[in-house]
């Protein structure tokens, strides 16, 4: 049985004037020129002096982890392990403990994270921990992570992440 072969793809046939590349190069350079004029003349700004000077980040930017406190200054995290469980990179390590009578003003429930570590070397900044947290305790709103020459300093401890301000409530992140 003879098979009828239909050639679906046909090679584009170049026109003679397209074989000179001046046309395309000019078109590309025009786009560059447009952007240059826009930023240099209209906005009067080309680069920022990072890291001394920082661009404002989008409110949805996912950066360093912050553990939030509530309005009364109590840590929101109750060591429910939801973030550790959901973390696809296995970057979070929590050890829970029971709150003693003396430190009850520091925590909201009777369970608190004795150890809360985020391994930045493992973290992929996907934001799933933020989404899983039932208490609105962890947010990735701490800015751009800085490089370091020591692995130890790239493991964030609880103290590194605690922010004294109240922070946003669940669902308030825009």
């Amino acid at each position: 049985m003879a098979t009828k072969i239909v050639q679906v793809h046909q090679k584009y046939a170049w026109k003679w004037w397209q074989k000179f590349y001046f046309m395309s190069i000019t078109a590309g350079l025009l786009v560059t020129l447009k952007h240059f004029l826009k930023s240099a003349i209209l906005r009067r700004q080309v680069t920022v002096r990072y890291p001394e000077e920082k661009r404002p980040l989008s409110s949805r930017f996912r950066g360093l982890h912050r553990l939030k406190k509530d309005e009364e200054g109590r840590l929101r995290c109750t060591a429910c392990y939801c973030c550790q469980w959901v973390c696809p990179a296995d970057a979070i390590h929590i050890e829970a403990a029971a709150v003693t009578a003396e430190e009850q003003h520091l925590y909201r429930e009777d369970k608190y994270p004795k150890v809360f570590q985020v391994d930045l070397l493992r973290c992929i900044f996907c934001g799933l921990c933020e989404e899983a947290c039932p208490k609105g305790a962890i947010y990735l709103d701490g800015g751009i992570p800085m490089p370091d020459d020591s692995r130890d300093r790239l493991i964030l401890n609880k103290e590194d992440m605690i922010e004294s301000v109240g922070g946003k409530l669940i669902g308030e992140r825009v």
Partner: protein
Amino acid sequence: MPSMVEIFVDGLKLQVDEKKNLIDALKEKGIHVPHFCYHPALEVVGMCRICLIEVGSVKIDPQTKEPARDDKGQVIVQWNPKFQAACNTPITAGMHIRVASEKVKKAREGVMEFLLINHPLDCPVCDKAGECSLQDYSFAVGNETTRYREVKRNIPQEKIGTNLLINHNRCILCYRCVRFDRDIVGIHDLEMQARGNDTVIAYTPPPGSRDTLLNHNYQGALADICPVGALLNENTLFRSRVWWYQQNQSICHGCSTLCRVTTNVKNNEIYRYMPPEEPEKNGFFICDKGRFSTTDFSRDRLLTYLIKGHGSKSRDVLPQLADLFHQAHSLLLVGGTTESCEDIDRILSLVQKWQAKGKQVNWEYRTQPYMWRGEWDKKVDFLLMVDQRPNSNYLRQKISGFTSQEKWQEALQEADLIIVINEFAAPYSYRIENYADIEKLYLFKLFEEKSLWSKTVLLNTHANAATAKALASLPIMVFPEKAGTYIDKEGVAKKSAQSLTPAQGLLSSGQILAKWNDYVEQDSLAYV
């Protein structure tokens, strides 16, 4: 003898056993009626009202005295206007019930809303989350909103047992713990106090007792039968979340009852035992002694070959022991009641081999005074036995041992080489509180007194004072690291699954003696 009757559930005709509770009978047929206070092993009280069902009976025509039928020839069912609790409704032949009608669903939603009035909804903090009936049924039959606008009652958590905490806010007053203590354990020490909204479960010491805390051996079972997170065990508090555990069907080695259990394993460590699958067949309860003994399996393990208390390698130690074996004329094996049937069979075949070579080999499994008194069937409470060795029954069938304790002690003196099989290490096999207190042990004192250490080889799971003193100590597996069969006090063979991964190269007691024997046989070839 089950007496089967016909009942109609949501229009479905089912054959069920009349003598059973309705909830159990329906569960067998695959219909799950939610319940909190009902427990198959406890008396029915009908307190929680979540198992509400509609019950109806067939309308009888007053003239003909026969079931009235409608136009289509179907019998007419008269439904009771009030709901009934399924746990408290006896099964009668021809009864009609509805377990999933709209009316029933609405009623359960209402009951759930009432039960959750004072519940703090702190599942992220609660240790019960994941195995909590309240959580499950709240998702299954509850409503996601509440109309309660008042302040929830807040009573602080308190300690009511040596290993038991009560969180009154989470309690739904199902009465299970009270019934369990009163009917199963036999100590009437939990009771409800106050009335109405203020009702709490409280510890009320039985008359004549001066205890301030509940201290019986079933506090783990109390936390386990609690359908919510109100009763919690202190020593497992916040250690893990329940959905992290790998589960294996195994047995508890705490005593010769050999309760079937589910092991909860995380990071190659058993966190606790839970009651087994199909508890109706395999037992609902396990005692605290077994349930919380599991941390011993990963603590203070002997993982190296010791000779005179110093670490060495198997290929250094075993040839030396093979030499000792050749020099020895009489051997005495001591213990072995903690080993599986497979290991015991292996050792027995070795013993026969050695006897055939002309060695005088004896094996005595009785190492504790209670064993010599023959207290094999004596109980501590309704589950725990005095005989806290898992496989003593099998050894009792297999070997006879010495006729009296004195003769055994003489034999200990006279033997050239003593091999002690896991007598100084098996966790919780001794009735001592802290098993690091190995020196208080009867056998340890006996070995000290008669200064037998210089001719003793230990097969031990744990490193302790005994392994430091003995001539040589060989590491062996603990029972969750190997699969095996054990014979319980009633002669029933029970299988224990492998739950933990052993350290690389670690052998069981039978295997390590076989390896020793390999060296012995190699050497005897050299002697020829």
